[in-house]
């Protein structure tokens, strides 16, 4: 696995996420988020899982940003007002505390792995995790119906 590829992808992912979280222009934030998810798909390729990468690209890097931009258009919100200073303080402290927990993992032993192709992942998806797969489809159906019902215009 290429060290350079990982470094470039990780840098782009983190830069995109930072822009998405810090930018005051919400359209810029949404586009940066799309790029972030696109580079996360690249990370899945590095992990030897093209299936995950394709789904990440189709759902998170294409469908969700379009939905987000559509909602931004509908609600006409262009700018995000900055939050009060105390929120930045609390968020910074929480983020640092969370990162402190990271030290436990940095000494993970080095090992190589044999990636599993899309066909192997698909067979496991429909045998080992058949029940969660069906539950997930029902969940998507429920979410679709729920979103339609919730977003419907009420008759006056």
């Amino acid at each position, binding site marked *: 696995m290429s060290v350079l590829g990982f470094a470039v992808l990780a840098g782009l992912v983190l830069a995109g*996420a930072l822009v998405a*979280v810090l930018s005051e222009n919400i359209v810029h934030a949404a586009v940066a988020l799309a790029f972030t998810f696109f580079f996360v798909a690249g990370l899945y390729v590095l992990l030897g899982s093209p299936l*995950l990468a394709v789904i*990440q690209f189709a759902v998170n890097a294409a469908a969700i940003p379009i939905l987000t931009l559509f*909602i931004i258009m509908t609600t006409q919100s262009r700018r995000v007002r900055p939050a009060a200073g105390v929120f930045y303080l609390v968020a910074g402290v929480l983020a640092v505390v969370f990162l402190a927990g990271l030290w436990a993992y940095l000494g993970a032993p*080095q090992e190589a792995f044999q990636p599993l192709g899309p066909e192997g992942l698909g067979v496991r998806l429909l045998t080992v995790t058949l029940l969660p797969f069906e539950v*997930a489809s029902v969940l998507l159906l429920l*979410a679709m119906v729920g979103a339609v019902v919730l977003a419907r215009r009420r008759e006056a």
Partner: protein
Amino acid sequence: MITLGHFLALSAVLFAIGLFGVITRRNLIAVLMSVEILLNAAAIAFAATAAYKDPVFFSGQLFALFIMVVAAAELSIGFAILLNVFRHTGSAATDVVEEMRG
């Protein structure tokens, strides 16, 4: 040589960035976008752990798949609720939602 630690570190930093966004953002759309970052950080951790530690079943990569499903469902419902809030109050800021009464 990229190790599991690298992927977990990236996932943790991404999660911290998303957490920062969830707390500091004042627009509901931006908060939902930060939640998406959190979910993706978790999915990266699952997929990487599966690749390095579970070389037979790769259960974590299937779990990452289910995280994407849940993220899509969460986002569609979240945006539907946001549209209702916007129609009700004319704004998508977090501080206009002060009461639960419709």
